[in-house]
């Protein structure tokens, strides 16, 4: 029984002091308020539990306690998530307004100051004085001598009995508001220095018209018609930006000039000779286009006229212009008559006629005689005009590019800052270049080879060569070993064995391409040598 009784006793003892202090009804909240860390005792008692236990216990004791019994039972789960806080040993809400605030030591930096500052009591009390805004320092002190004798002339004023009496009055009645800011005697002198604001409001005028409308919300113009005035200084629509036009003669850069092409240059030249008339210095686009069209049309007309002439007078008569030696009549009747007499048709006669044509006449007829100026204008154009069209010398352009004649041309590339490699050892090292002696050696070998190998089949030799090269590529490092192997056992043939078996000369000649290798093989040899050398040195160091 004692053990069963333990729980309520505990709970009772826990709240005993407070229950003495306060009424039972609001006990729980008081407890919670006082000890915020212990909102819910872990040994929370349930009423039913209590009742059971009460039933077991003697009833009268229960009745005694019943009054003081605290009902802090919660049947439902609390409406928030909670956790067992290890620091407080209590069940704590995990979040929300009921979550306990950690101790001051756990507050983040600066929070202490904020809380302290927020908790500072707001000053209360009514001030008796009014600020003088810097004009009268010290005026709100209790002991301020309102006589103002000091402020004017300073310490020289030997505060007379008058000020003393005044102070005495103050002392006797400290509650008296003694802050009377007296205007200084020379204040009006200074008043001219300050901007004087009109402090009183003027009487409100009765609002009519626009203001009234605006105030009432009656439809009214957006701008007060009294205030409204035409906007000055506006631009005409010609001056607005959307009417901007290209200025007529504003060529501030020579790049804005029309680039001279064939047509413009020709037109200018024609204008100079008086064949055409231009309106300005430079031919306009229209003039150029017109020129181009006319030129085309004139050409077409000419060609058409020629064709018509050819058809009208017949080919013999037409072409006889270029055959001076053809003295016969070339009219159509004569041709018809000749046809009837001899049976030669017109074509035959034309061929006959052309057989009398000299080569000079032929060139003139075909237009290939350079001595005849076919386009006198073009040929008569000055050199600068020609260069405008066709440029100058394409190799050394001097006309179409602006260049300082004294300028040293910089041919450096983008990587000019990198040091120029010393090419000769580089190429030598990589086997791209060999010395003359080596070359001569190789050539000698090749000559002897040619002499010796002449009898060998070309195809066979090539095939063998390929095989050798492959070998070298495969085992580049062990070149010498391979070679030694090959020398030692010639029987060992791993590639092209059928060929080599059938032609034993090839195997003999194998030794000959080997020295031949020395030329192009100098690189590999060098590699092998160096490796051997390093190996040797390494071995030497090891030993």
């Amino acid at each position, binding site marked *: 029984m004692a053990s069963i009784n333990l729980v309520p006793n505990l709970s009772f003892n826990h709240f005993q002091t407070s229950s003495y202090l306060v009424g039972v009804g609001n006990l729980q909240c008081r407890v919670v308020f006082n000890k915020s860390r212990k909102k819910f005792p872990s040994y929370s008692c349930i009423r039913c539990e209590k009742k059971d236990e009460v039933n077991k216990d003697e009833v009268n004791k229960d009745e005694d306690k019943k009054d003081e019994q605290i009902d802090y039972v919660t049947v439902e789960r609390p409406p928030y998530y909670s956790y067992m806080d290890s620091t407080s040993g209590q069940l704590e809400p995990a979040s929300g307004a009921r979550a306990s605030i950690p101790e001051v030591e756990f507050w983040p930096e600066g929070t202490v100051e904020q809380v302290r500052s927020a908790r500072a009591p707001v000053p209360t009390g009514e001030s008796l*004085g009014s600020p003088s805004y810097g004009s009268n320092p010290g005026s709100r*002190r209790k*002991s301020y001598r309102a006589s103002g004798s*000091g402020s004017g002339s*300073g*310490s020289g004023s030997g*505060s007379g009995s008058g000020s003393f009496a005044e*102070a005495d009055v103050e*002392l006797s009645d400290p509650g008296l508001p003694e802050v009377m800011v007296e205007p200084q005697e020379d204040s009006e002198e200074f008043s001219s220095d300050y901007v004087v604001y009109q402090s009183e409001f003027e009487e409100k005028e009765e609002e009519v018209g626009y203001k009234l409308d605006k105030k009432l919300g009656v439809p009214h113009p957006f701008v007060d018609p009294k205030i409204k005035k035409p906007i000055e200084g506006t631009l005409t629509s010609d001056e607005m930006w959307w009417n901007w036009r290209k200025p007529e003669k504003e060529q501030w850069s020579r790049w804005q000039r029309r680039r001279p092409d064939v047509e413009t240059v020709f037109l200018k030249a024609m204008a100079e000779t008086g064949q055409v008339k231009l309106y300005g210095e430079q031919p306009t686009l229209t003039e150029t286009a017109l020129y181009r069209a006319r030129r085309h049309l004139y050409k077409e007309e000419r060609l058409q006229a020629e064709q018509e002439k050819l058809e009208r007078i017949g080919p013999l008569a037409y072409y006889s212009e270029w055959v001076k030696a053809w003295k016969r009549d070339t009219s159509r009747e004569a041709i018809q008559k000749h046809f009837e007499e001899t049976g030669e048709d017109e074509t035959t006669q034309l061929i006959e006629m052309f057989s009398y044509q000299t080569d000079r006449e032929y060139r003139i007829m075909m237009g290939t005689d350079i001595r005849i100026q076919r386009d006198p204008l073009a040929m008569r154009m000055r050199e600068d005009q020609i260069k405008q069209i066709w440029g100058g010398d394409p190799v050394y352009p001097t006309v179409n590019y602006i260049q300082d004649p004294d300028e040293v041309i910089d041919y450096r590339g983008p990587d000019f800052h990198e040091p120029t490699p010393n090419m000769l050892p580089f190429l030598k090292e990589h086997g791209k270049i060999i010395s003359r002696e080596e070359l001569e050696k190789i050539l000698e070998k090749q000559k002897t080879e040619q002499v010796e190998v002449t009898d060998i089949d070309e195809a066979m030799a090539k095939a063998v060569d390929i095989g050798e090269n492959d070998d070298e590529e495969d085992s580049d490092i062990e070149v010498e070993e391979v070679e030694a192997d090959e020398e030692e056992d010639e029987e060992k043939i791993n590639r092209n064995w059928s060929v080599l078996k059938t032609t034993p000369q090839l195997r003999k000649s194998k030794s000959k391409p080997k020295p031949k290798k020395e030329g192009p093989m100098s690189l590999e040899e060098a590699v092998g040598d160096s490796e051997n050398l390093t190996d040797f040195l390494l071995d030497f160091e090891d030993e």
Partner: protein
Amino acid sequence: MASSFPLYQPTPCFFSNTQFKGLRHGCLWRPTYSFASSAQNKVKPVQSSVDAAPFPLLQPPQVEESSSELEPVDPDFYKIGFVRSMRAYGVDFKEGPDGFGVYASKDVEPLRRPRVIMEIPLELMLTISKKLPWMFFPDIIPLGHPIFDIINSTNPETDWDLRLACLLLFAFDCKDNFWQYYGDFLPSADECTSLLLATEEELLELQDPDLASTMRTQQQRALKFWEKNWVKRKLSLFKIHSGAPLKVKRLARDSQRFIWAVGIAQSRCINMQMRMCALTQDANMLIPYADMLNHSFEPNCFFHWRFKDRMLEVLINAGQHIRKGDAMTVDYMSAQKNHMLMQRYGFSSPVNPWDVIKFSGNAQIHLDSFLSVFNISGLPEEYYRNAEVLSNAGDTFVDGAVIAAARTLPTWSDGDLPPIPSTERKAAKALQEECKQMLAEFATTSKQDQKFLDSSPESTRTLDAAIKYRLHRKLLLEKVILALEIYQEQILF
């Protein structure tokens, strides 16, 4: 109020009932320089002329600041700062006849960490960098304002007070500036004890020709500066450009106002190193509320610049026990003699432990004996009375003046060599003689000074300060004579 006796009467207290006065807290000796005593620079402590004190000498015990004479200040004083996020925690601003002071409103147990009692944001201050790129935080001076030319024309090494005065006057003229409101609580020109405002006769009353001449040159300097920048500038510029001088001219109509501002700047300037983000600069600062803290040679508060939110913190020393009603004090200038304090702040103290008396004779007393007689411990730079070892109850004789004596008396000390009593007494007598000679050189005695102070309560503050200065000098000499007397009696054989 009539009964309240604001006068600071330290002398009679010391002599008449030494036992009574003294260590209030039971801890170290105390200069008794708390609020009422006089020290406050700001407060321009000197006894107020207002109260009729017919029998001041008969009420010495009340010299301890009786709460009756302290009134809470105008509530607006704190309110104007509070709305600008200045905060005071656990302290009250009170106003006595000697001026403002800050007092604890509750007990503070000794804490391991300093405890914040005030926070003053940078926005309320007036600061000028000490060195040449003049930087103002907050930057209230608009670009191209003629006051900047005036500030710029000052000598960067010496004229910090003139600059600060210009800035202060300009702040008074700025609309909605905090100092327009705060200025009403600064001591006015006739409340200010700064000797800059003293007349020639008052300077003569100092009975200290060196200090008087120094103050004369300072007055001349301030006056010349004002004339140069206000009077002449006004004349010359008016013809050319009538708008420019007005901004400046209305800052200080008369030289009196400017000199007052210089005095305020001198007595309230706090030199601190403030750090703003990456910028660290030494600045001369006028810090509202913090300048209401009074001086003490043994302060219980100190300043700290909190760069995080640019606030000045006033902190109670760690481990300091504060009782309700205690004055919060800081050390204005550490290790400075009375005349320096007088020159800059306009107050002096009879118990300044750093005061010096110049002895010219050969007589020397044994240092260790003298220290042991008065239970003084520590190194010469930091002597203190070791009250815990042998604290005779009520022994309050040892105060700052005795410490000063220990520092300034010609002494000898040679290892363990013990003093010979007869020669010690002879030396002490010789020193006493010398002190008496020095006392005789003054035109008045301390009693006369005291009597004058008592009899003319309506005299100006600066005159009061001047008379107190010479009084304190004499009190120190008398205290030294007394200490030597006690030394002769109690010297160990």
